[in-house]
């Protein structure tokens, strides 16, 4: 089981990688979304706000998200550190993403561009 701090660290790492990638920022400049990330086994909720190609992370819950990502803490940390692709836990039911299919695919594309295969 990962801790809240570990998940936060993974998400900060992901956020930093996103914001340092000019191409990714440009590609997502029109994709304004709110993503809530919630651990199912520890008390840990974070929200991402993607606005005009810039990604901001904040602790806690934001209303009306476009996507919600939930999984056990270990899976969340692994996914956002890029140690596993989101598709693997998603297909075995460990990771749950609620939102439009296009948004889910876009989120996976972003992971692929940050972490590679």
């Amino acid at each position: 089981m990962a801790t809240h701090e570990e998940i936060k660290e993974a998400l900060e790492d992901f956020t930093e990688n996103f914001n340092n990638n000019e191409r990714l920022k440009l590609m997502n400049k029109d994709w304004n979304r709110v993503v809530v990330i919630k651990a199912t086994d520890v008390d840990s909720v974070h929200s991402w706000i993607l606005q005009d190609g810039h990604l901001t992370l904040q602790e806690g819950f934001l209303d009306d998200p476009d996507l919600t990502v939930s999984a056990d803490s270990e899976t969340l940390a692994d996914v956002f550190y890029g140690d596993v692709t989101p598709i693997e836990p998603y297909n075995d039911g460990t990771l749950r993403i609620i939102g439009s299919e296009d948004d889910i695919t876009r989120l996976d594309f972003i992971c692929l561009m940050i972490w590679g295969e």
Partner: protein
Amino acid sequence: MQLKRVLTLRTVVATSAGLTLASSSFVAATMVANFVLGDAAWIAILIGGGLCFLAAACFSELNGMLPSAAGIRLYFSRAFNEQVSLVVSLLYMLIVVVGVVGVESFIVSQVLHEAMPLVPPYFWIVAMLLLVTALNLRGVKMAGVFQDLVTYTLIAILVGLGIFALYKTGFKLNAPLSPGGAVGIVNAVALGVFLFVGFEWVTPLVEEVTQTKQIYRGMMIALGILSVVYAVFTTAMTAAVPKDVLMVAPAPQLVLARTVLGGLGASVMIVVILFTSMKTFNAGLISVSRFMYASAREHVLPAIFSKISMRYFTPWVAIITLFFIGLLAAAMTSLTKNYMVLVGLAAAMESIVYTMAGLAVISLRRREPERERPYLIKGGYLVPGVTVVVFAILAVAVLASDPTALLYMAGAFLLAFVYVKTAVPHLKKKHEARRTTSRRRRRPTRAMVEVEGERGK
């Protein structure tokens, strides 16, 4: 937690019915009519629809307990194992798409060739596949409202034309309950199932609705609407046009429209066929390219299929590969003109998947009895049990009546099985080796910290 964008029941019904209503459905409807005596096709169609309700109930229970766009890939891996799930998913995608693209493209090319005889039929196939591929590469999707409008208009046209044809021919049921021999009925019902192929492809939308029950409600309503549409339209076709004429027509719906409404009816029907086929092609290409992308991302297909367009965020390698597969399927169908075999093949594959859905419900009730089930089929094991038996019989009936379809099915199964047994472990191993060297995993786990702490003391 409330999402910003949610789908309505109207869109869920339109999606389920829209994925099912293909131009090739009417070829299958004609085949159904040919297996039974007189004007009794509606009986086989309603039985087929009724049986799909059983399968829909199984999908609803599975979808409720495992709400994920991964669909059967997830249900079957949980209920059986990873390899079974992969073999069936690969076969399902391949056969249904090749079948649908092959038949649809053949129908459209013949229809357009008839309207413009100077242009060779294969030109239309290439043009249509190119157009759909270009739309997919650019990530263009039909807007929800437009998609709803197209589907409901199509349904209204079909029912309207069917009722008008019945009225014009002064239709009376001659032998309403005399469909003929048992073998003919079983085959008719099995092909009747093909009419509803794809109703369950709406289950991936579970992540876009507020309540999972909207998915099973939508599926059931769509099946009810489709049963009525097909029953009315098929009865009208056989009432207005002789069966032997319908059987040799690649687009029997066009024959009915021309017979009943003349040139104007034919023109409207050509537009309907074009819209229907484009919609089917597009939906098929989107679903399967995303499936190929996801499979490559989980290392069960070569990594090249996970390549994405930097401009449009679409899996371009998967889309272009499907374009060539579609082209090949269409070319084979045009050359052999044996599109009926693809209908049989897709019907058999659907029946196999529905059988497995029933088995998955039974298996998961035993393996995961504690898991929450927002939709639980009443009556214990009766419905999933009947689903398994009925669809297994239908799959056998279709394959036994068409040796070519049986041969293709056996070949495809063998190919998928060998691929999953040999290539997939190789791809996974290769990825695992790469992952081990590039692992970014940060901090030690809490257990390791405690061990380190103990050592320090």
